[in-house]
């Protein structure tokens, strides 16, 4: 869809560049029209070579054929991969190398009534558009055909890598494993744990960052109305923490009101 919308635009540009090639096609219409009337005209030969990179020709040539316009003319591949289709009258043809295993792109070959040959990319939508290809044809396989869909297999990894499962499993792991890793008997540690757990819990009363920043800046400017509201306690606590120094107090600054009160008690 999107491709077909874009490519013609691009091609129009290419065409305007390849004016010479364009003229050639216009000329082409003449002999093409005459083709059907001249029944006993000259017969020409389409030549080329098909290449499958990395595969010996003996392994695939016996199943390959060269089809010109469907089965209108048929050619066979030589043991070195080259081919020639004989007895083709002038006209415009789509040449295709067909094998059950490898994929080859079709090429359009134009033959003038004088036997002048030209190869170009096949474009069924803009039939007169010319993107030159080498002649004698050099058709390179773009890899093996893909005939099969991949089955949706069920594996443990697929299950585990599922985001929903990950979201469920990771907190579970933390809940189960962390108490084992960290020594919970130490009261200090426990306290810290509790606090960090609290940190994990999103606080509904936590102000959003922008608000916090404005508060912070306004506070630093001097108008310190700390403790006037529940929201106001936070910067105040922070400042106090800065003064008192210990790292414990710094952590406190991020806690909710309850924790604040605790620290006050201390």
């Amino acid at each position, binding site marked *: *869809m*999107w*491709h*077909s*919308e874009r490519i013609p635009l691009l091609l129009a540009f290419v065409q305007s560049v390849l004016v010479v090639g364009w003229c050639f096609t216009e000329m082409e219409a003449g002999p*093409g*029209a005459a083709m*059907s*009337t001249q029944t006993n005209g000259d017969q020409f*030969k389409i030549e080329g070579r098909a290449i499958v990179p990395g595969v010996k*020709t*003996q392994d695939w*040539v*016996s*199943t390959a*054929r060269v*089809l010109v*316009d*469907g*089965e*209108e*003319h*048929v050619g*066979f*591949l*030589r*043991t070195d991969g080259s*081919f*020639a289709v*004989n*007895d083709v009258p002038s006209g*415009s043809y789509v040449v*295709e190398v*067909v094998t*059950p*295993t490898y*994929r080859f792109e*079709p090429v359009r070959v134009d033959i003038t009534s004088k036997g002048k040959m030209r190869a170009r990319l*096949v474009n*069924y*939508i803009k*039939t007169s558009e010319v993107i030159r290809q080498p002649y004698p044809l050099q058709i390179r396989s773009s890899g093996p*055909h*893909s*005939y*099969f*869909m991949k*089955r949706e297999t*069920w594996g443990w990894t697929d299950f585990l890598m599922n985001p929903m499962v990950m979201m469920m499993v990771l907190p579970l792991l933390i809940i189960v494993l962390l108490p084992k890793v960290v020594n919970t008997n130490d009261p200090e540690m426990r306290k810290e744990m509790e606090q960090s757990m609290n940190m994990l819990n999103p606080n509904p009363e936590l102000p959003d960052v922008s608000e916090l920043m404005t508060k912070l800046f306004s506070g630093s400017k001097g108008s310190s109305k700390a403790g006037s509201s529940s929201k106001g306690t936070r910067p105040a606590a922070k400042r106090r923490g800065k003064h008192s120094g210990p790292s414990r107090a710094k952590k406190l600054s991020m806690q909710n009101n309850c924790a604040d009160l605790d620290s006050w008690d201390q």
Partner: protein
Amino acid sequence: MAKLILLWLKCVILYNAVDAVFEDQVGKFDWRQQYVGKVRFSHFDTHVQSSKKVLVATENNVFAALNTRTGELFWRHVDKSGPEGNIDALLHHGQDAILVVGNGRLLRSWDVNVGGLNWEIVLDSGSFQKACLVGQQGTVKNVAVLKKNIISLHYLSNGHQKWIENLPESETVDYQTVYSGGNGEVYALGIVPHSHVVIIAYSTDDGEIIKQISVEAPWLSNIVASCAVIGQGVLICVDSATPSLYMCDLHLNTHDLQMTQIPLQSLGLEVAPDFQPVLVSHQPNSAHQPLSEFFLQLGPDNFLLLQLNNGQIVTLRDFKPALLVSFATTGEKTIAAVMSPKNKTACSINLFSAETGRRLLDTTLIFVMDPNGGKPEKIYIQPFLKKDDSVGYRAMVQTEDHTLTFIQQPGRVMWTREEALSDVVTMEMVDLPLTGTQAELEGEFGKKAAIQDGLMSMVFKRLSSQLILLQAWIAHLWKLFYDARKPRSQVKNEVTIENLSRDEFNLQKMMVMVTASGKLFGIDSKTGSILWRHYLEDVPSNAAFKLMVQRTTAHFPHPPQCTLLIKDQDTGLTTLHVFNPIFGKKSHVTPPALPQPILQSFLLPLMDQDYAKVLLLVDDQYKVSAFPSTKNVLQQLQEMASSIFFYLVDSSQGRLSGYRLRTDLSTEQIWEVVIPMEIQRIVSVKGKRPNEHVHSQGRVMGDRSVLYKYLNPNLLAVVTESTDTHQERSFVGIILIDGVTGRIIHEAVQRKARGPVHVVHSENWVVYEYWSTKSRRNEFSVIELYEGMELYNSTVFSSLDRPHAPQVLQQSYIFPSAISTMEATLTEKGITSRHLLIGLPSGGILSLPKMFLDPRRPEIVSEQSREENLIPYAPELMIRTEWFINYNQSISRVRGIHTSPSGLESTCLVVAYGLDIYQTRVYPSKQFDVLKDDYDYMLISSVLLALFFATMISKRLAEVKLLNRAWR
């Protein structure tokens, strides 16, 4: 832009939604059989002693190498069909095979081992006569090609022309054959019928004429038919009028050369009356002279082995009766093989020393003839030397029905190839019968039984049938148990006619195939094994066939019945062959003799008292005859006559006409449409398939209203092509006509287009494909017919009462390939979405969803079209190899695709035939009614088990906890 990208994404998703074959499904329910056609030339590859190849060139323009051990193909090359790909000659030397193709147009050399082309050259024009290998000093280096007026010599290594010479007096002299004895000379032999023979010797080196002699032979008309070269270059001819043999030595350099006459009577021989005697000679190596022994056939079953000894003809052995003879050489030994009839069903092949005519010991081979096959036509012998220097051999026998049978001593058939199947004309798929037990159960609930029997006998019947079921089940279990003990390799589930039965989902069917040679086959659709074959001997070569299933297997105990209509296309005379499609046996029902040419034939939905559908045949006097024509049928016909309509097509006069049946089985014409012959001609007329079901009457639109389909079962799609083939003025027309009233529903013309046109007509749509001469591409066009938002008469469709013309929608698309044939999938109830199966020249069968060929595909996407799941219009249809239902199993020259519903709604059985036969199943809407074959039984059962144990354990734990709490 963002919208466009979104659209494109959606497109991609939809494309992906269509299912394809999975890799593990390969060969699971599909099979392919590859054929080559009727063998014209055959050579055993002898250049390596252990070679397993036999080269065949066939009348279907195929050149292939077969494996002599299995009969499978090593490789195969399919040339263009028609005279341009016709194989005129096959010569074999070492590992090269030389073919002359297309009436001497091309000379090709193939590498036998690889199956690749060595070289190909174009020869000068001229009608081909004969080619032969030319040797010199014991080695073969050249090939000579004789045409009507020229002779040329080419190098075997690269095909380059060594020399070319015009034949002298080629206007009057008919040069027919070329011969080389390996002595540096090539002889061209020509004839002026009933006057003289012209012998020209060319030098192999430069093509110089060494000598030119003419020999008086007023009795001779054809060299190829009645002459042969034997021994040291002696031309020997046979004349049936005198009757005598004539000889002359080609090497003699005198100008007054004479043919020496040897009357056959002097040898004590006699020619069978009205028989043209035939000479068979043999040249073991092209670099050496031929044998001086030769066969002379004096009658249809009389052969003589003769020898030329010092200018004298000696009779070595008289073979009578003998059917076929053949020479073969291995090493230094040349043997003659003779096939003679043993009894009615078997022939024996014996070997004889070619030099002495003595019979070789232990060389008898019995060839059992198939009573349903043809007579032997040709034998090819592959001799080999055993360790004790005696000669052993294998034989390939070709019979009239195109079958190849490869036999080993003492008569073991190694393989058979039914080459008639390379030319399937028409086919049907017939349901398999129920097994005895199934049929018993069915019979119990039959209507007749319930009325006749009382209560007690019904109970008794019930019990007995249950008992039978139990018995069958136990037998099945026992078989399972028995098979389980045997090693897996020995367990074979071979399908034979005896154990054929319908499976649960009716996926296995009998494929009844009719071939052009007149041989009928019954093939099991699951395995592809041929279950029965029947050769019809008196089928004319240009016959047209029509196969109809008159009675299916559903009417036990009446046997199923098929009728094959065989029509001679020249005279129009028709014969009927009535047979049982499951066993292939000819039916006891005698078909009516049809003295008049038949114009039209059709099956009515009426049935006679034996549940056979009625076949009506219309002859050229427009009289109708019925088959079967019992009193019951005729009575039914009289009642129904007023509602039986039929149409006739006369494409030679461009006339379509509709007729109605009268009660006295005469007809009256009710409409006629004439398509002017000067402008266009009728190419094909397509109706709908009678066994097609349409499930939904309409389409639900985006705004929740319903657009009703125009489902006219009598609609015909008539395709016409312009007589003017100029690419600016040619056109393809399509006319939709109601077959009952003759009303033209719609007409469409595709300008600047030409055929071949492929049409599929189904439901409310017609899809056709043509070649656009303006843009030089193949295009698809789809026409859909709708009644509109309201249905005129929703209960029944009548062509006579349909006042509103349907709405017609049409859209066209570009298709990036030529196509060979096209068919639509078919399912039991028509719920499943439809796909088009398109046979491509590359050998793939593309399954294209009908969704892509929908004239309602919008150019601008709206909310409603999105609601309807319409794909936005794109001019080009894509060919994706994932949609090939036959993955890499390409099918050469697909001529037809047969689709048949199975018992499962989701599944459609597909058979593609051409040179090959391919059978598979397709699931157009995926398998929605059965568990998929990749269903993870392990997962579901392990999850279930785990849950079960978890509940058990947690229950126990809960109990313990409760107890503990109670104690607290």
